């Protein structure tokens, strides 16, 4: 796990500020950006994967039962999956609820 940026001194930095831990963007939580989250109606879902293809974050994954669900650590709540789902299986719900 990389040190949080607020704790790095200039001496901690790699040459040219290169980040040598590959793929560490995955440690960056974007899920707390959203104000709405996608919810899935399993009765309407036909497991086509269209939502997954359209997700700009690439955070919708197929679970063990075959349903496509957004990874809430990353999901920013943009609503594109709900818009593209042609069976209207996905509904955006306010985070507060």
């Amino acid at each position, binding site marked *: 796990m990389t040190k949080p940026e607020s704790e790095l001194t200039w001496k901690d930095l790699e040459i040219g500020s290169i*980040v040598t831990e590959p793929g560490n963007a995955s440690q960056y939580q974007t899920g707390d950006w959203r104000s709405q989250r996608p919810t899935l109606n399993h009765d309407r879902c036909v497991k086509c994967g269209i939502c997954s293809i359209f997700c700009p974050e690439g955070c919708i994954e197929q679970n063990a039962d075959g349903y496509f669900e957004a990874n809430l650590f990353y999901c920013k709540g943009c609503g594109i999956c709900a818009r593209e789902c042609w069976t209207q299986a996905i509904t955006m719900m306010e985070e507060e609820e």
Partner: protein
Amino acid sequence: MAKRVGIEVSLAIAEMAKLANVDVVAAYPITPQTHIVEHLAQLVANGELDAAYIPVESEHSAMSACLGASAVGARTFTATAGQGLELMHEVLYVASSMQLPVVMTVANRALSAPLSVWGDHSDVMSVRDTGWIQIFTENGQEVVDNLLCAFRIAEDPEVLLPVMIHLDGFHLSHMIEPLFLPQPSEVEQFIPPNRYPFPLNPGKPVTMGAFAPPIIYSETKKAQQANLEASKAVILHCWEDFGHHFKRYYSPVESYLSEGARVLLLTMGSFSETAMAAIDKMRQEGKDVGLLKLRLWRPFPFKEIRQAVKNADVLIILDRALSFGGPGGPVCSEIRSALYHEQNRPKVISFVGGLGGRDITVAGFEYIVNRGIQISQTGSEQEFEIFGVRE
């Protein structure tokens, strides 16, 4: 044994890039550096140099391609001048802050408008803050020698910074003069292979050019500054080693007949040689005057400048660039600033001349010295004087 040849300096640069066995050249032609990249293209085309020559569509692309090549661990070289240097401006900052060892020769040229293909230092002065190591040269031999050193300095694991070698456009780039080119074996001995530590490689992925919010940006800049400052030790060691091998010696500030001189003239680039002839003449006439030649421009040699002028009463600086609405001579303003806290410092007088290819003759330098001495005695309303301008 090195070969003494009569050659155009531009072509000698290309020959040196070939001797250094560069891997990638991404370049766009522009007067007065065109002969450099044309000759390189020829060397690659006829198989004398095994390199990828990328003829890009602009200097912005040239430096961008060089960045990419350097990031893969290639020994990378390019050349530009004037407007070309301006066009790649934003990418210059990226090369240095990403710490990629690109080497570039700049045939210093005046900036438009009006359009001028002739030489001066305005292009150099526009890239002062870009974070590149920058070295000035006075004659063809110095150009090829420092180009050789540039590869070694840039790629040194303690440095990993891009290097610009400055040569006066036309006055040096198009000059045919004698110089010694080293043998391939001497080059091989002097520059180790490029071992950039994080070459882009899918087998060992890294992130380059990451995003930096305010919380971390200052630290990245401090690191960059510390590395540029630290490069000076490597530069000095490289020059020392060069002198040991090739018997030609370079240092950040060089002097000519300046021992005990009360009046010093300071120049950069090929006009320094004409200035030396002027100093000879003035000394013969009994004038107490010497010459300083600034060679290492970045990192700026604060210590050496302070040391060189500590016994002088008057320091007359000739800039070949004009900082409009500001201090006039950029080099002069930096030197004044470097001397500000010194107990004993000379009066510093600023001249701007040799703009857009205008020659300064021996007589011209004599005038500058005499007028500089006069200003030091009587003072002046102006921040600086433009030498030779018709009023």
